[in-house]
């Protein structure tokens, strides 16, 4: 099983730019809620809503760099060898503002960060021999 993990390096800045909703339709309802319905053919299948509370403060793994500057990640029983790459197209992180306003037509997002680089990893299974690994 291949598992690609991309770690995206954000750079935070104060951007004045806003993403402002002018007119609203039912698709935007799903956009705001962070869920989607598989019945619409614009979406690519059901999304799992991750239980975000369960991940908080959890350890993920160890990140090392070899002498060529390539990242190596160890997550559980896997070693992941990776590369640092530029994103083909930058990603911007947008954060909802004025959450107290219930009016859907007023939803605004601020631009909080820009992501230009990623570390991309693929797995290779690594056998763990011998003693148990204590993972916190």
């Amino acid at each position, binding site marked *: 099983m291949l598992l690609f993990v991309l770690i*995206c390096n954000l750079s935070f800045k104060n951007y004045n730019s806003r993403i*402002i909703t*002018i007119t609203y339709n039912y698709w935007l309802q799903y956009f705001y809620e*962070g869920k989607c319905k598989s019945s619409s053919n614009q979406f690519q299948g059901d999304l799992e809503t991750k239980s975000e509370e369960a991940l908080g403060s959890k350890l993920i793994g160890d990140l090392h760099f070899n002498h060529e500057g390539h990242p190596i990640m160890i997550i559980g029983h896997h070693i992941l060898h990776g590369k640092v790459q530029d994103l083909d197209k930058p990603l*911007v992180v947008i*954060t*909802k503002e004025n959450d107290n306003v219930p009016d859907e037509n007023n939803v605004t997002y601020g631009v909080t960060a*820009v992501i230009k680089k990623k570390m991309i990893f693929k797995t290779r299974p690594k056998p763990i021999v011998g003693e148990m690994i*204590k993972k916190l």
Partner: protein
Amino acid sequence: MERTLQQVNTILNLAKLTESDIKKESHVLQFIPQILDSKQVKLLEVNKDTLEYIKSGECLFIKGGEDAHVVVCSNSKTFEFKEAETSNSLLLMPSLNHGKLIEATESRTLKKQEVFGVYHTYYEMRLTKPKLQSLRNALAKYPYKGKNSELSKDAVGLSFTELKNIIQASEEEIINRLEEIPAAKIRGKWRLLDVGFLFGWVSYLDSILREKQLSLEEVTPLNVEDWMGLYDIADVNSKCMSLFMEVDDDSLKWKSAAVSQLFALYLLPELRAFDSKDFFTAWQQSMPVGVTANEEDLNGVALVDYDSTPSLVKYLPEFELPEDINERLDILFRNRTKWTLQAITPYVQPLTDNNLNVAALLTKYARSSNINGVKYYSSKYITQTE
């Protein structure tokens, strides 16, 4: 419990690596206590131009339309707004000194690295040509038939702000389209100038010129403004001038094609299909002095059907056709089975975008054939039985 360097080194060794294989600084990745909520924080993929636009402080505008269609607009461009799902897990974390910039530290160190959240979805923006027919349709609900025909004391129509709200296009694209179509701002609200009114406007000016035995070339824009100042309000007059005249410094010329088309649009709808001999006669006779009607000017407005007896002229204005390419071509080919490029271009041109020009669109959505060295386009789907 905190993860220790010893634990990290142990795992490293189990992974068949030693500390000499790696740089001295290692990181432990850990989610922050409250990771980012995808309802609140989202990822938007942008191209380089859009990133520069955002960095300059400009805003983007999300506009929902009927059904699920959503666009996002800058000040001058329109993009389709789509959700993309990836099977990868995207972990977000702040900038790390990825490998190259890590200072060669003396001793082996372990640093904590926060991870803000994990994502499987991001949003894409795909540059698109906005469907602006809705603009004309919206304004057509408030036709202007002349200052003396106004029914209400209050201003009717749509303000520019209202237009920006309901039309899924950028401000600049809306403004450009308002200039192209016969729309005018009357008492602060936008409306569509009625065809009958426009016909009357041009005919009135023509009658003044005939009376004074002058041609349009012999008068100045100021003359026209003065004379037409009695006919209607200044903003409407200047819009009509821009629609139907070429103004070069102080000299004027009729825009032949625009005037011919206007007159065809005025004469045809009554009967929908006009006996072509009668039509061409009436058409030419009604023309202002100095304007010759050419059959080519009917391109995009009407079709001449020579196959029927008597031959007919059918009313078929481009702006009444659907904006979906397949729907539009279906109607066009039902009206006429084979089209030359020249005849079909005015109907297809408005549907082109950066990627596909008229020829490319026709290659993709229609079938072409060669008759006596002339290229004709016909329907990909309907087989003609004639």
